[in-house]
């Protein structure tokens, strides 16, 4: 029996009629040719989140970002005019990497007045203009105006810095669409206490989004996380979301969250009772403005037992809002058809007391315990998909976001290939 109301069509999946209900072909996660097409059709055409604005606190603050999926390294910098810009991290003289420390493949950050190449000391100002050439007289009719850094589209939404390699792309605001508008005003800027995790995962990038975009697995894979009575109850009840929505290419799931705080304290682990925290974060909301009322796109069902919303911004960014007032971003950066780098950032309001600090510590530790279990199924899935013994998989109504993600990937690749064939 359903615990929460479904749309009139009878299911979330049928409500969004273009999705169909047939089994889904997972060739898109194992085919090297499809992966190469994704790099062109998706990652070089869409807006990609590369970091928070707090990483650029001053004029001249910068950080570099390695993006193997689009085969480049970028410099993101705040100019004297406070504008955030992005450039390909390559010196125009002979192609050396412009900004790096000891190891060329490692990211770096800092503050500077200009960028100076280690090789021959060509200099670029914070707007990317070439400002100085060592022994300029030795060159032949060199017009410095023609040799500025190659720039990349860069826009900021609510403090999230995005880049786009497509100069003709629509604006970031238009791309983020209804969700972008509906989330606006959430107090992200207050949440500057950051925990950043990184993991190398032996699976296609979409498989990890699949793992986090449905909670149908939670009572099963994570059953040992809960005390026994709670685990038994969760297994029996199963999982149903409060609400799903698609605003293609993006999507969202809204879920209840009975554990922040729990009605029955015996249902949570002893340390959670003392620190008043757990998977859903510290139970006591931080004392800041902007959490009440929440922006309209959050908890769209207006449900009292609401616990968490997860927005999937296509292609590779998840943004989670937890009822107790903190957020997570996940990102999935492909490095091969069967490999990717997973990044997670946990953002809290800075704690004022030791007690608040330890409550956040428990939330962060709990996050990692869950994430490792989620990550570990993926390599096994990838390996077995690659056998091609089974190619089509039935997805249930609680897996609608997965169905949508794989359709978006396939549609983007097809559209790109059709346009290329026509030109």
């Amino acid at each position, binding site marked *: 029996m359903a615990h929460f109301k479904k749309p009139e069509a009878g299911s979330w999946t049928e409500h969004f009629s273009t999705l169909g209900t047939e089994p889904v072909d997972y060739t898109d996660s194992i085919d090297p040719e499809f992966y190469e097409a994704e790099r062109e059709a998706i990652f070089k055409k869409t807006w990609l989140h590369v970091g928070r604005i707090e990483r650029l606190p001053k004029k001249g603050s910068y950080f570099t970002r390695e993006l193997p999926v689009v085969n480049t390294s970028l410099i993101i910098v705040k100019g004297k005019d406070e504008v955030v810009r992005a450039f390909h991290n390559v010196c125009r003289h002979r192609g050396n990497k412009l900004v790096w420390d000891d190891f060329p493949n490692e990211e770096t950050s800092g503050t500077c007045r200009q960028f100076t190449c280690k090789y021959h000391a060509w200099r670029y100002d914070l707007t990317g203009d070439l400002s100085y050439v060592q022994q300029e007289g030795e060159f032949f009719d060199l017009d410095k105006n023609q040799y500025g850094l190659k720039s990349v589209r860069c826009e900021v939404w609510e403090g999230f810095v995005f880049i786009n390699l497509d100069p003709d792309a629509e604006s970031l605001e238009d791309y983020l669409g209804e969700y972008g508008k509906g989330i606006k005003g959430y107090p992200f800027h207050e949440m500057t*206490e*950051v*925990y*950043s*995790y*990184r*993991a*190398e*995962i*032996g699976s296609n990038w979409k498989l990890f989004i699949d793992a986090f975009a449905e909670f149908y697995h939670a009572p099963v*894979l994570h059953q*040992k*996380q*809960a*005390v026994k009575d709670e685990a038994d109850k969760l297994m029996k009840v199963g999982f149903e979301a409060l609400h799903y929505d698609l605003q293609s290419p993006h999507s969202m799931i809204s879920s209840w969250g009975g554990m922040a705080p729990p009605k029955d304290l015996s249902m949570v*682990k*002893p*340390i959670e009772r*003392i*620190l008043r925290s757990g998977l859903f974060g510290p139970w006591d909301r931080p004392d800041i403005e902007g959490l009440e009322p929440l922006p309209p796109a959050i908890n769209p069902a207006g449900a009292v037992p609401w616990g968490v919303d997860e927005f999937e911004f296509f292609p590779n960014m998840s943004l989670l809002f937890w009822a107790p007032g903190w957020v997570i971003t996940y990102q999935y950066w492909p490095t091969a058809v069967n490999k990717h780098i*997973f990044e*997670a*950032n946990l953002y809290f309001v*800075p*704690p*004022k*007391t*030791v*007690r608040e*600090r*330890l409550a956040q*510590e*428990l939330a*962060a*530790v*709990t996050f*990692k*315990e869950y*994430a*490792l*279990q989620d*990550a*570990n*199924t993926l*390599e096994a899935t990838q390996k077995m998909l690659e056998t091609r013994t089974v190619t089509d998989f039935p997805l249930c109504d609680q897996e609608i976001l997965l169905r949508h993600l794989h359709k978006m990937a396939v549609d983007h690749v097809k559209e790109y290939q059709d346009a290329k064939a026509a030109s």
Partner: protein
Amino acid sequence: MPKLPAEFADLEKFSDWCLPTEAERYAKRLDSTMAQMQELYDATMPRLEDACAFGDKFPLDDLPEDVRSLIHLMQSLVMVSFPVEVWKQPRVPDSGAAWAELYVEPVV
């Protein structure tokens, strides 16, 4: 030289768990037996509430060194709570080869 405030002298024998970073605490968890973690848990868990109350007398961004050590010990309690309370083993069950690195963290 004691690491912890005099009020927590009973926990001094666990001071090798006063570790400032998650990487150190996680590594020590993986290197420890369940018996060692159970002993730490049994001794520190009844003092967690006291440690919060004691620590809250000081500004979080300007903690005396011994209070800082006390917080690091309690962070280790948080780190071993999963093995002790639910896993019954140091590693996360069903996590196999999965590994995650915490590369940015607020260190007390």
